[in-house]
């Protein structure tokens, strides 16, 4: 893979939490390349650092050392620079959906667009129609099923047309039927729209929808970058 094929690249990432004897070294010199339009699944046991990797890639926390390149350019280390990346170029799907309880589904999408300074005109309706949840647009999260909530969360993550969609165990809170539906949805978004997706998962079934699966253990990837 040439550098121009990589939309997201991590080089020598280190990340630790805590201080002194309680310090936990979670990422230990991790390297990763994600191709443009690739659906990558990252698997590994609990505590291996999968979610931390996703948070670092998603610019929610800076790495202690190492470098992240997005579309070939290094991500600025400043909080404002990382914030701008989150705002414009990254979409995030959480295991527990993380919808805002007091807002309707449509308003959850609209506020994520407003935060990004983008117009909300019709975008939520368009995405809800594509994801088969138009009927919940005026409902609040507490009035939706968990499957519907996760689809709305995916719609919110895609609303601003991010370059990379990061999904942190998106099926982790779903029953098997809803999980299958969601994976089919992600697969369709990847296939039809060429959306780059990095998905953390425990599940081999979930990972099966990805183009490529990498395994992680003790803060490093077992599989060498392609």
């Amino acid at each position, binding site marked *: 893979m040439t550098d121009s094929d990589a939309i997201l690249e991590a080089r020598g990432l280190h990340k630790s939490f805590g201080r002194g004897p309680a310090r936990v070294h979670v990422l230990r010199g991790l390297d990763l390349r994600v191709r443009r339009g690739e659906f990558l699944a990252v698997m590994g046991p609990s505590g291996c650092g999968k979610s931390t990797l996703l948070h670092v890639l998603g610019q*929610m926390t800076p790495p202690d050392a190492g470098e992240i390149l997005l579309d070939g350019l290094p991500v600025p280390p400043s909080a404002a620079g990382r914030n701008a990346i989150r705002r414009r170029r990254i979409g995030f799907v959480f295991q527990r959906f993380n919808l805002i309880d007091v807002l309707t589904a449509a308003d959850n999408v609209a506020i*994520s667009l407003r935060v990004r300074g983008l117009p909300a005109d019709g975008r939520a309706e368009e995405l809800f129609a594509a994801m088969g949840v138009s009927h919940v647009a005026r409902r609040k999260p507490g009035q939706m099923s968990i499957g519907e909530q996760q689809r709305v969360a995916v719609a919110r993550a895609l609303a601003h047309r991010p370059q990379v969609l990061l999904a942190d165990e998106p099926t982790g809170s779903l029953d098997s039927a809803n999980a299958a539906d969601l994976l089919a949805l992600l697969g369709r978004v990847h296939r039809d729209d060429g959306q780059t997706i990095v998905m953390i998962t425990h599940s081999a079934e979930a990972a099966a929808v990805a183009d490529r699966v990498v395994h992680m253990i003790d803060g490093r990837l077992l599989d060498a970058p392609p």
Partner: protein
Amino acid sequence: MNLPLANILHHTLRSTLSALGIGIGICMLVTLSGLARGTLYEVADRWEQVRADLIAYPDIWGDNLTTLSGVGLPDKYAGVFAAEHGDLVERVAPVFLWHLKLGGQDQTVVGVDAPDADVVLGGRGLLEGRLFDPDSRFSRWLEGLLLAPSSEGDSPLEIASADLSAPSHNGLELVIDSRLAAAGGYRVGDRVSAAGHEWSIVGIVPAGGMARVYMPRRAAQFLFGSGDITKSTILFVRLRAGADPSAGARALRKPGVMLVQVRQYRAMLEQKFGVLFRYVDAVNVVALVIAFLFVMITLYTMVLQRTREIAILKSSGASDAFILRQVVCESLLLTGAGTVAGLAMSFAAAWAIETAAPLYTVTITGTWVLIAVGAAAAGAIVSALYPAWRASRVDLLAALTLE
């Protein structure tokens, strides 16, 4: 729907209590200021209705006559002013001021000669009944007894209360204004007891004149001036048309006599009772500070309870300024609702006060409404700053992973 409004509507009870806290503070500000200033300025308004330009009073009283009553300036100055400055002075009306308890509270009583009543009534006519001592029979009777040359050197006369109210020259008559009549339930023909005498209410005039109670000047002088009917409290001087009051006051100046313009009375009241305003304003400031501390605690609690929501916004790239705006906007919405409620409560309180105590005046002015709105907006922003800062410091990773 925007997030601050959604949060306010979602937490109905907490939002209502917060808005109510603001509302009570705003209501206190507007109502107490309106009551203090309204009641005082209503007195000033009434004095400004007097058809005169100058007030003459003894200079030993200093530069503020607002609380003074009783024996003051010799009546002879009325003649002196008219005789010496006939080109300047159109009319002089001596007035004796005293206080009586009527309608449940102390009232300033104006003792005035019937022919001068139009000066203190500001030209108002009677609504009911008649003026006291209409043909001056009482005045002439008392003057005959006390001012006639034959009485000089005699021992003081003993005049019984019954003599003062003899049917042929009844001097114990009152005219009251319509507001006191309504508050006290008084009607023409009623007899009231005050200052140790029985008085007849003979007339009712429209509210807005100089005082609420009027009586014959000679009766006031005799009863409240220790029998000396040669002195009144003040003299109202009306200057001829086109005369400059300030120059007139200088021209009429005599040793022992102070002359001020009638329009200075409001400033004298403000000077005398300004401390009351400061006290009321201080109480209002304390009430508002408490109200906004309540808002701050509410917003701070909200921030602590909504770290996940804030983290979700930050995970979407929300800037610190965006988060700060959400909290300030929520504060402004709560305060806005509280201000509207507070103003509504103020008008209700004003109505209730004036209904329960008709002699009090609560004046809610546009200025004070604007002050209340401005104070509320400023308080909303200031009280939101710390919670907003805390919100902007939320660790999104900790908030989103501690599920």
